[in-house]
């Protein structure tokens, strides 16, 4: 059962092959049996899941099922879930039971999907390896000594190991795509504004975007059908019609123009990754696509720009964690200042503190123009690169990550080398563009991700491009040996 896709599971439930309750139970048992090796879940909501499954079975029996009713999923622990701990991977929120559902969560509830639990993540989504979680590192099911990527590493590992058929993730600088690449699954970061951010604990508000993490592009389309849409509670969500994202999956790719940015294939790219990506491009040529070399000249500026913008926003977004109303509070504060200093000092981990400090510095009087304003200008230049590129091509392709999964601990003492893991993914966040990572082979025994970046609101095209590739390749069906 656990090797079936969302689409297949949904069909199985509807045909009566198995009930939602049976399916849910089998996943819970699988999580209980296998997650000890991975640590991909922070909270497993067993009781709630079985309740939801029984309700879904009734709904199906009453003939009121939607496409995904009764199918289980897991949420990254960044989404508020009513009555369930929502920790954001931090000691700061270890005791926080959210009193409401994030919009994404309530959309999946309305669709009748079953929540298996909350997945592990880098603390406050700040990390590229899932090593900064208060709940411990997540392991990559393809090699337990390596990282699954981050920050949505728990979702990625759980989907890759078939502990859940699908999970939600969030992507601020690559946090869906990079772990998807490192664990051999399919991940989509939609256009900024496509999915509501309400109830998703903010890291960097102008960059954060939620998206699906699945095994196939078709499943991602089914998930996005539920997630996407305007939300009056999020002023930055777009009031724009939501297409059926499965509608264009089967269009052929004849004449599709693929741009290959020369900056994405230079120094620093692992040979094994380059080889796999080049082979994937060859497949696309066979499918009738044309390949054009393009340039995104400001690519080199994206990491430094991001590491001003994201910390600046996070320094302000994380101010509400002050020990006053919710979350961690230090023991016996002497006075107000002591309460603030120790609650935050003890409640946040090192990477979070590092980014708060960098961000507060970049916004300080006297430095604002040199850092924050400058970064905003560079952000504009980076967006302009893409605007020009999309006058020429339909999609842009390249590696998702410069390397395959690296060893745990290998980069944790060197933040800059860690930050460079996201060198190819960050630009799409700065520009607000949709991007995907699809499994495109292996380097050694570890998976490689192909990144596909599209123009604004062209998620349908991305999914179509990914789906067609998955019709002629089987990388997305490969499972890690111990989790088959």
């Amino acid at each position, binding site marked *: 059962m656990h090797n079936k896709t969302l689409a297949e599971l949904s069909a199985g439930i509807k045909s009566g092959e198995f009930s939602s309750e049976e399916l849910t139970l089998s996943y819970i048992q699988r999580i209980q049996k296998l997650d000890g090796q991975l640590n991909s879940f922070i909270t497993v909501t067993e009781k709630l899941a079985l309740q939801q499954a029984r309700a879904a079975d009734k709904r199906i029996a009453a003939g009121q099922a939607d496409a995904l009713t009764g199918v289980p999923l897991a949420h990254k622990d960044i*989404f*508020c879930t009513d009555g369930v701990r*929502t920790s*954001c991977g931090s000691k700061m*929120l270890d005791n*926080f039971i*959210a*009193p*409401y559902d*994030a919009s994404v969560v309530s959309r999946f509830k309305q669709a009748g999907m079953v929540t298996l639990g909350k997945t592990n993540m880098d603390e406050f989504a700040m990390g590229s390896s899932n090593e900064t979680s208060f709940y411990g590192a997540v392991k990559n099911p393809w090699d337990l000594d390596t990282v699954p990527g981050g920050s949505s590493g728990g979702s990625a590992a759980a989907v890759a190991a078939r502990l859940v058929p699908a999970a939600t993730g969030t992507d601020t600088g690559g946090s869906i795509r990079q772990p998807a690449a490192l664990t051999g699954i399919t991940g989509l970061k939609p256009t900024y504004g496509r999915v509501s*951010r*309400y*109830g*998703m*604990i*903010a890291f*960097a*508000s*102008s960059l954060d975007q939620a998206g699906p993490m699945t095994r196939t592009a078709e499943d991602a389309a089914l998930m996005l059908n539920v997630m996407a849409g305007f939300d*009056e*509670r*999020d*002023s*930055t969500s777009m009031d724009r019609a939501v297409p059926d994202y499965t509608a264009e999956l089967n269009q052929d790719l004849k004449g599709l123009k693929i741009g290959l940015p020369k900056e994405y294939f230079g120094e620093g790219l692992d040979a094994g990754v380059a080889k796999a990506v080049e082979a994937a491009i060859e497949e696309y040529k066979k499918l009738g696509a044309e390949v054009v070399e393009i340039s995104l000249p400001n690519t080199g500026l994206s990491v430094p720009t991001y590491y001003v913008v994201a910390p*600046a*926003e996070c*320094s*302000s977004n*994380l*101010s*509400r*964690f*002050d020990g*006053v*109303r*919710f979350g961690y509070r230090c023991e016996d504060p002497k006075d*107000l200042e002591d309460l*603030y200093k120790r609650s935050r000092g003890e409640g946040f981990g090192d990477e979070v503190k590092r980014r708060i400090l960098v961000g*507060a510095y970049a*916004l*300080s*009087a006297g430095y*604002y123009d040199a850092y*924050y304003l400058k970064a905003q200008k560079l952000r504009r230049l980076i967006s302009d690169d893409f605007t020009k590129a999309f006058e020429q091509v339909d999609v842009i392709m390249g590696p998702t990550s410069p390397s395959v999964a690296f060893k745990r601990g290998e980069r944790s003492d060197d933040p800059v080398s860690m930050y460079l893991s996201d060198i190819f993914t960050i630009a799409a966040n700065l520009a607000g563009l949709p991007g995907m990572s699809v499994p495109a082979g292996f380097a050694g025994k570890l998976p490689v991700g192909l990144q596909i970046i599209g123009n604004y609101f062209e998620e349908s095209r991305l999914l179509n491009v990914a789906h067609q590739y998955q019709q002629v390749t089987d990388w997305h069906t490969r499972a890690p040996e111990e989790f088959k």
Partner: protein
Amino acid sequence: MEWETVIGLEIHAQLATKSKIFSGASTAYGAEPNTQACAVDLGLPGVLPVLNKEAVAMAVKFGVAIDAEIGKRSVFARKNYFYPDLPKGYQISQFELPIVGLGHLDIELEDGSTKTVGVTRAHLEEDAGKSLHGEFQGMTGIDLNRAGTPLLEIVSEPDMRSAKEAVAYMRKIHSIVTYLGICDGNMQEGSFRCDANVSIRPKGQEEYGTRAELKNINSFRFVEKAINIEVERQIDVLESGGKVVQETRLYDADKDETRSMRSKEEANDYRYFPDPDLLPVEIEDGFIEAARAALPELPDQKKQRYIADFGLPSYDAGVLTADRETALFFEQVVEKSGADAKLCANWVQGELSAALNKDGLEIAQSPVNAEMMSGMMQRMADNTISGKIAKQVFQAMWAGEGDADAVIEAKGLKQITDSGAIETIIDDILANNAAQVEQYRGGNEKVFGFFVGQVMKASQGKANPQQVNELLKSKLQA
């Protein structure tokens, strides 16, 4: 040395929206602590602000009322600082691009001349909650009902040169926002409060002196006192060879002094930046023009109309129009009673105003409403009662004894206009005061007043004063 005072005011007017500026929670005053704070106001993880369009419309109304530039594109910014009653650790405000730009208004000075005061800007922001001290055994309670209440912060140019001018400006802004219906103007509840930036400089010097900011003053009287006391302090400092330091000071009304709260060095770096959760506010010309067209009659226009249509002196017109409720009351009395406007004005500014002050009431709470007042004015106009008796009637109405007719009836205050009856009283008085009659006839006309007083006293004030005058004269000269 002769010193000149320079004052600029920052006024916070709470906008009269039903719900908060970024959430759907109610803004009603006085609820149990934390019962009007939703997830957004509490700053829970994951929540997002959504702008209340009504607050934007109100800010635009204010902008057009002071003939200001309206920001076609204004931007909300985060003002970052930690405080227990500031749930998010930042206040959403506007910084570089406010919704209302440069505007101006006129104030009337004591000598009757007019002065134009510039308004630098007005911007939208959310209020913080309240810290409650004292009731929690050494701990502090937080009430977030007020958190997220919309404020319009109105910043003036440093154009005022005395505490009196500052008060006149503050009163003018108060009239404008209440006329527009965008603020209830209630200063006790903190709906209208101000900070004053005060500095002094040698008369004739162009450069401004170092200023002190006086925080959170919530009455017209305190603004005047606080500024005067601060100016005295600054003069003392400078004349004794010291320097005024830039700092925030608090006015203590009980001790009538200002105290330092924090100096510039201790001031926060607010790390303002555009709030990424909110889109810039775009305002179209059509919206601004519609707001301009829909402006109600404002205090200055009303005052001119009172002068032109009612023939009121400028002073009276100014007093009556300063407060919208007072103006409406006055207009109703004139309209319903048909009495002379000046007489109505005298009553509203005189007897009514004194009674309200004495009992500490707002005009809307007056036990004598406009209808009762008109009824009384009519009885004066038709000679049923004299002005003097009217004061008695007014006091009875104030005490809840019914309307004018009921009081006149119950107390038998109807004026005596029967000449025969008045003559009988006069004859009696003249007979009993032969000496004074002699004096009058001997050329001492001053004693005439004595006779009037005696007649009125004998009639218990009910004799028609005009008739008394006429009849007395004819009898004394006979």
